[in-house]
């Protein structure tokens, strides 16, 4: 306790110097917090836009799948699997006035697929199919073909035939590829159209941690057996993954260098303090303080500076983050990059600052034990 108290008094007595070093640490920590939140947010939004509303692990078979109910029950309990839905997909075309446009007809269990695709959020007009032979159509195709809700169109499925369906709603996935291709219907309609009651073509699922998708996929594979093919988004988006990883490691690099500069800063300032306070250390030694306790004074200084710097840094970092999300906005008023504020990450940053400040004070602390009483007394 005594070293801590002396450290506190030392810090307080040279307040200006203390404030500047605390500010130094704070800036370092705030950069960490800000960069961390920025890159975390970037990754998150990238993941969200790319794979957030899509199947992250997919099970298919050469034939249609009939056992899908029991498979779903088996894999829903696998650790990391969040939602499981299924669909019956078939390519075809939509025929309007002799013109044929390619489509992918997707038969969803709309309730289950909602969890993956957030369909309701994407509905822009009408409603999703609820009756037989109703479909929802993508906004791009809807506008291109000048359709309206309630219109009837012909869908042609090769080798099966044509069916007349009613447009019940319009969706917008914000992805042109989907908006011009998918025709969403319910499972029953597609099964009836194809004459395959009780069959689906793929099981789709989402996982909790998208970066774990490959591992979870292999658990799923073990569960369902070799007659099924299990794919995951990582296999199909290797580039995205390496992009994300590069982002992650560049963020780590920045943080490491910021930490190093914080450590160097503290250690050099504390080294100066040892010289400034060598008279006091001499006095303390003359009245019986042991070298170890004297060293603890400087370790405590580092520790206290670390704590103050960490608190200041977290506050400053949050302020920076707040300013960024308030002022760096697109024309709609949304932040250019949505930031991800992760309490654990911030705690780690603060903790790293405290630890590194303490470590930075080791050299000055060792130096303090070399202060010679006689030198101090002689030099008055």
């Amino acid at each position: 306790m005594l070293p801590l108290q002396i450290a506190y008094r030392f810090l307080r007595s040279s307040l200006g110097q203390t404030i500047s070093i605390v500010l130094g640490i704070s800036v370092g920590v705030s950069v960490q917090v800000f960069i961390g939140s920025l890159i975390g947010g970037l990754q998150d939004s990238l993941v969200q836009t790319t794979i957030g509303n899509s199947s992250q692990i997919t099970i298919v078979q050469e034939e249609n799948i009939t056992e899908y109910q029991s498979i779903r029950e088996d894999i829903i309990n696998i650790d990391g699997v969040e939602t499981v839905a299924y669909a019956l997909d078939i390519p075809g075309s939509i025929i309007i006035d002799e013109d044929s446009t390619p489509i992918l007809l997707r038969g969803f269990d709309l309730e289950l697929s909602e969890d993956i695709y957030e369909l309701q959020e994407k509905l822009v007009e009408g409603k999703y199919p609820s009756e037989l032979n109703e479909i929802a159509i993508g906004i791009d195709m809807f506008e291109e073909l000048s359709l309206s809700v309630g219109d009837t169109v012909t869908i042609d499925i090769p080798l099966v035939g044509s069916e007349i369906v009613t447009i019940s709603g319009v969706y917008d996935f914000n992805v042109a590829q989907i908006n011009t291709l998918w025709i969403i219907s319910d499972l029953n309609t597609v099964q009836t159209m194809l004459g395959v009651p009780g069959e689906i073509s793929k099981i789709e699922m989402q996982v909790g941690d998208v970066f774990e998708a490959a591992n979870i996929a292999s658990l799923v594979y073990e569960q369902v057996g070799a007659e099924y093919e299990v794919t995951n988004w990582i296999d199909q988006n290797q580039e995205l993954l390496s992009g994300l990883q590069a982002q992650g490691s560049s963020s780590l690099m920045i943080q490491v260098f910021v930490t190093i500069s914080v450590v160097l800063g503290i250690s050099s300032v504390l080294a100066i303090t040892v010289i400034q306070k060598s008279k006091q250390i001499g006095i303390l030694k003359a009245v019986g303080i042991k070298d170890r306790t004297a060293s603890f004074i400087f370790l405590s200084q580092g520790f206290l500076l670390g704590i103050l710097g960490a608190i200041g840094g977290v506050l400053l970092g949050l302020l920076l983050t707040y300013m960024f999300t308030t002022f760096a906005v697109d024309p709609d008023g949304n932040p250019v990059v949505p930031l991800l504020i992760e309490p654990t990450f911030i705690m780690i940053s603060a903790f790293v600052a405290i630890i590194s400040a303490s470590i930075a004070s080791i050299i000055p602390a060792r130096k303090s034990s070399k202060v010679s009483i006689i030198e101090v007394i002689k030099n008055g």
Partner: protein
Amino acid sequence: MDNIIQVNNVDKIYGKTIKTQVLFDLNIGFEKESFNSIIGQSGSGKSTLLNIIGTLDTPTNGEVFIAGKSTKNMTKNQLAELRGKTLGFIFQFHYLLPEFTAIENVLMPLRINGGKISKEQLGRAHELMDFVGLTEVKDNLANNMSGGQQQRVAIARALMNNPEIILADEPTGNLDSDTTETVYELLRDINKKFKTTFIIITHDRRIAEKADRIIEIKDGRINLDIKKNI
């Protein structure tokens, strides 16, 4: 009477390439509860002797016994403990911690030794402050006091651990003559009241003459050693 301090054959040589010998084969003992003064010109080696006795400096040759124990082979920690418990120091430039108040400075040796301060000990610190006449200013930061006040704080601090020996190097060196008188009276009172052994370096012969024993150091050797009969 027993010698509480015994200096045997002490040499002190400074420098490695150019050697300057400051003390030459010094032998001297100090009796328990005695009040001694050391005089000598500057550069005579008197401060070096005092620092060696106080274990702040080490002799090149020879040995120092404090309360019967040789300090020669003590570790740095043992020496720190010895200083904390047996020795009290008063320097010319008082050397208080400017970051602490007067009373906190007085309590510092105690906190270094033991940590927690008991009610009795706190009471003693206040008594000492009264004793040195600083009742009014004991909560002032050390820097907000006059030179004489600071010196008296340093004296109270030296007394706090009830040391058997107090070593003072020109304790009144930068004080005016009235204050000098007060401080000396105080030291004598302490010597009588607490039975503390004193070794005081001074350049002031009038002051030196008030001691029980006057030792003059000249060119690193004892030139004069007068004991007064009390």
